[in-house]
């Protein structure tokens, strides 16, 4: 109890970072030696009283008077317990505010002479107002920290009229700074302490409100995510219940398993790993999940390193090629050469071949037998009518329904990265606003670029350099130059009659008999019959029509067998009508006689060679030159050149000059419905014109081809084999060719070459001499004179 003059001497307990207010219970752990001594001194008294003073600086270990605030709180030690390590735990109860008058050292602890410093209990409307305001602010602030305590506090503040007690009770509830707390303790009047409390509380409230706003924002964002997560977990659980396993996980596990087994290049593996990790994080309801999964499926399946081993046995390869195809020496040699290279240098680049030839000559099947000869897989892709670049190169994965390009798809189908890959009908690629597939082919077919072919869908480089590309085309005219440059051209010209007979005997007849279920002995077709079929029932460079005709015969024989007439049948040339009906083409197409003005030309077509007649006639009182028969520009020009030549050489040819003035001329080339073009009919038109002006007929057994110049030179042309074969087909045995084409005759089969008579022309004069007998005589007479 206080003395008469209210001055007491009590041990001092300095505390850090906080202030003990009256009415406040404060548990403390005390470890400082001096503090323990102070507490023990207090415990030894009857009253257990001690002075608690805040330290100005928390880092000072043994504070002097100047390190302590001069106003503190007298406290009673309510409870005490000793803990191990010399720590003392005490519970202090603040009793009243005191002022420290003097501090004295007492051994290791300090004592202080203190005097109570009660606040004057004054009343005013301002205090009343502040009191209520502080109570309200405190309740609002507490609502944000500890909502359940707020109502209790409201009751407490409403009931209490003691403003000092209110301030002292509220102060410890909010974590105020030490100097603020100390200022509250030191406030000289009630009004001042309320004002201080009010300002602290309103600041505190602002901070708290802001904090709770931030927290609630974060909360609402989080709760949305949590909701989704929860629903997804539930969905997963349902799926698990339904299927007995977790489909998503098992899919990913399966993919991982396949990935670990697959033989992949390192960068591809890395990319797949990356995508897999992405996939694991995706819910399987997301559209991206399926896109990524399909993509990964595809990646893992692609033969990045898988390859078939080449069978490099040249004699076996030769045998295979010969088994499958008759003749085609040049092509077979080229294949065998490549095999030889592969044997010496296994890492050699595969060639890119282009087979050019009319339909039905076996381009596609040749590709298959190359694959067989090399022991490689065969894949085929028809480019005919393709006009979208994306078909070849694929769509980027970002598009809905994106797919890899056809090339990569075919590689996946093959399952190896070195198949024989046939790109059919490369001459029939289209192009439009969607891009130009031919340009995409440039990359695919370039050995320098296709090592890192980048499909839009894959978005990873794939090595196509081991692929053996073969393209096929019927004509080279429509193939873009840069594309043509990349390929090695191998021409497959049409077959001669003899070759066709051989092919029919070796391949077509056995195949058709097998397909109709007949034994080889059941049906025979004589060579004469085959020749007749070729001449009278087919008109082609290849053998498709021939095979169909043989198929018809085979089916008819099979029908007889099925009806019970099981005797063997031999088909001869004479009874072909009963098997195949009336003949469809007749050799009579060769004109028996040619009037003056008609000459026999030879044309090259996509289906082989053809014979065409050039008809010229004079038009009395007509003018100029009329050209009909769907002639192209080049052909029209070569007609004009022919006329100019004849006109300018009228005298030597014995033609009256006024013929050119009095008569117009009309040239027609049947068949009128078929477009024709090219310079190779030049000599024919010149011959026809010479014939019509001189009225001497052209030899009916002579056909001709060659380009002419205005000065009368004869230039070489292409397609000699087809043209000669076409002439022979219609029974023309005498052919006039440009001298420079003499070398092309080696392409001809031996019997054909022997049978035919060739005249080689250097100038138009040579052609006319050979084609128009009377003109020949005229020339001879002129020379003689």
């Amino acid at each position, binding site marked *: 109890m206080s003395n008469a003059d209210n001055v007491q001497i009590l041990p001092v307990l300095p505390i850090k970072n906080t202030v003990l207010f009256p009415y406040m219970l404060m548990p403390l752990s005390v470890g400082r030696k001096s503090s323990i001594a102070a507490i023990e001194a207090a415990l030894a008294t009857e009253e257990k009283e001690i002075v608690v003073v805040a330290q100005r600086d928390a880092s000072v270990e043994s504070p002097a008077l100047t390190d302590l605030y001069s106003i503190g709180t007298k406290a*009673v030690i309510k409870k005490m317990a000793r803990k191990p390590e010399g720590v003392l735990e005490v519970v202090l109860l603040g009793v009243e505010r005191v002022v420290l008058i003097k501090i004295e050292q007492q051994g290791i602890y300090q004592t202080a002479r203190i005097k109570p410093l009660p606040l004057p209990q004054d009343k005013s409307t301002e205090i009343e107002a502040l009191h209520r305001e502080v109570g309200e602010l405190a309740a609002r602030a507490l609502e944000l920290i500890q909502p359940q305590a707020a109502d209790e506090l409201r009751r407490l503040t409403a009931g209490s009229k003691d403003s000092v007690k209110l301030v002292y009770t509220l102060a410890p509830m909010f974590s105020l700074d030490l100097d603020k707390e100390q200022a509250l303790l030191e406030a000289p009047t009630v009004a001042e302490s309320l004002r201080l409390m009010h300002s602290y509380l309103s600041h505190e409230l602002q901070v708290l409100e802001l904090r709770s706003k931030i927290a609630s924002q974060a909360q609402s964002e989080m709760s949305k995510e949590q909701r989704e997560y929860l629903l997804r977990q539930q969905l997963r659980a349902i799926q698990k219940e339904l299927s007995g396993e977790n489909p998503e996980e098992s899919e990913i596990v399966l993919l991982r398993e396949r990935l670990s087994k697959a033989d992949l290049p390192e960068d591809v593996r890395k990319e797949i790993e990356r995508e897999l990790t992405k996939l694991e994080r995706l819910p399987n309801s997301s559209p991206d999940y399926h896109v990524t999964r399909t993509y990964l499926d595809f990646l893992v399946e692609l033969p990045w390193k898988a390859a078939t081993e080449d069978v490099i046995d040249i004699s076996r390869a030769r045998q295979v090629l010969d088994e499958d195809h008759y003749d085609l020496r040049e092509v077979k040699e080229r294949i065998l050469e490549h095999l030889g290279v592969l044997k010496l240098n296994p890492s050699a680049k595969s060639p890119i071949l282009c087979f050019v030839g009319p339909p039905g000559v076996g381009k596609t099947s040749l590709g298959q037998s190359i694959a067989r000869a090399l022991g490689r897989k065969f894949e085929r892709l028809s480019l005919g009518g393709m006009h979208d670049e994306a078909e070849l190169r694929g769509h980027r994965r970002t598009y809905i329904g994106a797919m890899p390009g056809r090339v990569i798809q075919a590689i996946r189908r093959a399952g190896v990265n070195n198949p024989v890959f046939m790109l059919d009908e490369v001459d029939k690629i289209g192009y439009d606003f969607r891009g130009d597939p031919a340009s995409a082919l440039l990359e695919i077919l370039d050995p320098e670029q296709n090592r890192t072919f980048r499909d839009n869908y894959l978005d990873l480089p794939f090595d196509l350099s081991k692929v053996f590309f073969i393209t096929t085309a019927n004509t080279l005219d429509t193939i873009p130059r840069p594309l043509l440059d990349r390929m090695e051209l191998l021409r497959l010209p049409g077959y001669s009659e003899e070759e066709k007979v051989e092919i029919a005997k070796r391949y077509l007849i056995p195949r058709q008999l097998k397909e109709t279920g007949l034994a080889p002995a059941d049906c025979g077709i004589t060579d004469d019959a085959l020749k007749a079929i070729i001449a009278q029932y087919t008109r082609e460079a290849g053998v498709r029509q021939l095979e169909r005709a043989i198929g018809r015969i085979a089916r008819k024989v099979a029908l007889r067998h099925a009806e019970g007439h099981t005797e063997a049948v031999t088909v001869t040339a004479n009874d072909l009508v009963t098997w195949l009906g009336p003949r469809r083409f007749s050799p009579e197409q060769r004109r028996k006689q040619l009037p003056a003005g008609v000459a026999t030309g030879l044309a090259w077509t996509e289906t082989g060679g053809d014979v065409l007649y050039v008809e010229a006639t004079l038009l009395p009182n007509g003018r100029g030159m009329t050209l009909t028969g769907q002639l192209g520009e080049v052909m029209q020009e070569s007609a004009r050149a022919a006329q100019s030549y004849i006109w300018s050489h009228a005298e030597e040819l014995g033609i009256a000059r006024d013929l050119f003035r009095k008569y117009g001329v009309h040239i027609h080339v049947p068949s009128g419905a078929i477009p024709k073009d090219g310079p190779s009919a030049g000599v024919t038109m010149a011959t026809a014109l010479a014939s019509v002006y001189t009225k001497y007929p052209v030899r009916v057994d002579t056909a001709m081809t060659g380009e002419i110049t205005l000065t009368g030179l004869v230039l070489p042309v292409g397609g000699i084999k087809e043209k000669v074969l076409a002439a022979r087909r219609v029974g023309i045995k005498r052919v006039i060719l440009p001298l420079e084409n003499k070398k092309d005759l080696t392409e001809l089969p031996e019997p054909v070459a022997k049978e035919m008579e060739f005249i080689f022309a250097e100038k138009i004069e040579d052609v006319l001499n050979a084609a128009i007998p009377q003109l020949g005589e005229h020339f001879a007479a002129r020379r003689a004179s």
Partner: protein
Amino acid sequence: MVFGAAIHRSSEAFWQPAADIYRTRSGWLVKYDLAGVRTEDIEVTVAGSQITIGGFRRDWRLEDGCSHYSMEISYNRFERTLELPCDLDGAEVKVEGRDGILLLRLICQGEKP
């Protein structure tokens, strides 16, 4: 060293003894748990329906050379105000200490339970 200054609230600056209240034939009997408190240190005031007991518990040294190992008993000033459901003005107050319990009898005139 001062550790963990966790803060507890107390509504008053002194301790409060536990109390039992009995209804008797003649009025009220209040028992206070006030062991170790000298009777001369206790003062009782009755006003209206409120009865307030206040005082001091002082510790004393049992023998020389002993010091606290732990402490749970509250010392120093105590005060307790009880509210009874009747007017106590003019009631007779008797205080009696027995075995550490302080008995407080209130005899109300004319009050019959």
